[in-house]
């Protein structure tokens, strides 16, 4: 296979090609390293590329029997997944020299599945921001238009996967950090149910909301990688004990008869017309596949959005208070400003936001999932902002700009619901439009089934940017 042919493959396809000796782990690694070198100067999506050790690991993989379903597949991850003794900068100046204390459970599971890590990816400082900007290591750029933002905080993961400089990678999602960059860059991704995937060895931002998941070329890849990293972990007490279903099999079930919910409230308030049209077109695809589209009313998601902000603000501020006192100059202005506001949140309001969460989830499930199997909507109601218009110091205007970006993702974080993202088309100026499919707790299978069916019927996810 030529390097171009290799780079066009999904993880599932590449793993099969390596298994069947149609290509090798070394050939895949050489192709992706060359591509990464070629796009890095334009996209700044990598913080480190470990070329020598990655090639050595690929050579070893070619000599060994297959270790698992990702044997020999090159991957790079958001730079907040620890490997013992190796620096994980977390996109920050503060941690750029600290060796990680332990290896992340998610990385151990990907290693066991045979994946070969070849680098770490740019991200918003401490995963705190939806644009993908990083003032310490340089902003990451959107491969569809380098003047636009890639979205964050998993900016480098989305940009590298979209640019075919990475086959897949881990992101993290506290208020939208997988879903937003997936939508901005046109990749697939899954934010699993809160508690489904271990957070052990991943940098914490807000322990009540943090989730770990992959950004990928296809929903099929997202299902495979999420399945490999999900499941109980004694290292993470919030990790649920239930077994993980076989998502890679279940996602192949038909969506005929599936009830897909659409709400004209909230998701479509002030929604860009091109995005709304792409959502309608994607619902037509589901109709043709035999699903029924059901109009539903939603609870007041603005309340959940605000409650999510209270929790993430207070928890993030608590984690950073010491450094805010002793090293304030080592934060970028925007991140420091966002952290400071968390210190002003009353303790009782933070606790009330947590106390309300069970009732809110019950309310949402009763109102939505008693009528439909999955809720469909856009990830964003605005078109992709430019780097320049979001490269701002912290102030009221910046807070408003960022709030518009996270408005459709933070309610799902508050409710801890799984959400699968897929590209649903492009705007007239060539930027991707993302849809999200939200399911009830621990029902990733249904969201993955819908997303996979959509991608089997469309080809938006196969398009690659010309970087």
């Amino acid at each position: 296979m030529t390097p171009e042919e290799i780079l066009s493959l999904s993880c599932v396809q590449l793993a099969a090609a390596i298994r069947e000796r149609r290509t090798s782990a070394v050939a895949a690694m050489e192709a992706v390293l060359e591509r990464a070198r070629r796009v890095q100067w334009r996209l700044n999506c990598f913080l480190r590329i470990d070329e020598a050790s990655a090639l050595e690991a690929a050579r070893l993989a070619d000599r060994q029997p297959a270790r698992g379903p990702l044997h020999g597949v090159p991957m790079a991850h958001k730079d907040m997944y620890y490997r013992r003794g190796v620096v994980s900068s977390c996109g920050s100046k503060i941690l750029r020299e600290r060796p990680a204390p332990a290896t992340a459970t998610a990385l151990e599971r990907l290693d066991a599945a045979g994946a070969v890590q070849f680098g770490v990816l740019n991200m918003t400082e401490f995963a705190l921001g939806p644009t993908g900007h990083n003032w310490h290591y340089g902003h990451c750029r959107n491969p569809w238009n380098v003047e636009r933002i890639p979205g964050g905080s998993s900016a480098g993961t989305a940009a590298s996967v979209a640019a075919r400089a990475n086959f897949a990678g881990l992101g993290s999602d506290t208020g939208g950090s997988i879903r937003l960059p997936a939508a901005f860059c046109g990749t697939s991704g899954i934010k699993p149910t809160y508690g489904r995937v271990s957070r052990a060895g991943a940098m914490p931002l807000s322990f009540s909301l943090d989730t770990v998941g992959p950004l990928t070329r296809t929903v099929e890849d997202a299902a495979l990688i999420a399945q490999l990293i999900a499941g109980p972990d004694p290292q993470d007490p919030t990790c649920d004990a239930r077994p993980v279903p076989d998502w890679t099999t279940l996602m192949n079930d038909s969506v005929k008869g599936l009830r897909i919910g659409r709400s004209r409230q909230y998701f479509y308030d002030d929604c860009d017309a091109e995005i709304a049209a792409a959502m309608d077109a994607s619902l037509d695809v589901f109709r043709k596949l035999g699903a029924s589209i059901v109009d539903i009313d939603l609870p007041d998601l603005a309340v959940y959005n605000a409650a999510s902000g209270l929790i993430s603000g207070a928890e993030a501020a608590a984690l950073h208070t010491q450094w805010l006192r002793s090293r304030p100059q080592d934060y970028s202005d925007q991140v420091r400003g966002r952290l400071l506001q968390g210190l002003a949140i009353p303790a009782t309001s933070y606790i009330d936001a947590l106390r309300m969460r069970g009732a809110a989830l019950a309310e949402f499930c009763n109102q939505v999932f008693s009528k439909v199997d999955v809720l469909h909507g856009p990830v964003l109601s605005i078109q992709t902002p430019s780097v320049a218009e979001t490269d701002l110091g912290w102030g009221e205007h910046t807070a408003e700009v960022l709030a518009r970006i996270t408005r459709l993702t933070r309610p799902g974080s508050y409710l801890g619901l799984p959400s699968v993202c897929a590209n649903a088309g492009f705007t007239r100026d060539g930027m991707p439009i993302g849809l999200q499919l939200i399911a009830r707790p621990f029902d990733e299978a249904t969201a993955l089934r819908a997303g996979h069916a959509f991608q089997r019927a469309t080809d938006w996810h196969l398009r690659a940017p010309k970087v």
Partner: protein
Amino acid sequence: MNPSQIKAALDEQGVHADPAHVSAAASTVNSMLKATADRFAALPLEAEPAGFQVEQRRSAP
């Protein structure tokens, strides 16, 4: 909370903030408190954070 109260809260915690940060914090925090006030006021005495995990299990397929 007004900006003076925010600044006092930050000072008390030993954290310095620029006026623009204080002003933005006041605006953002007030907006979140306002949006949630009615719902928080209606929470029953027995509501507790662990109710979320209970509801997750109850709502799962």
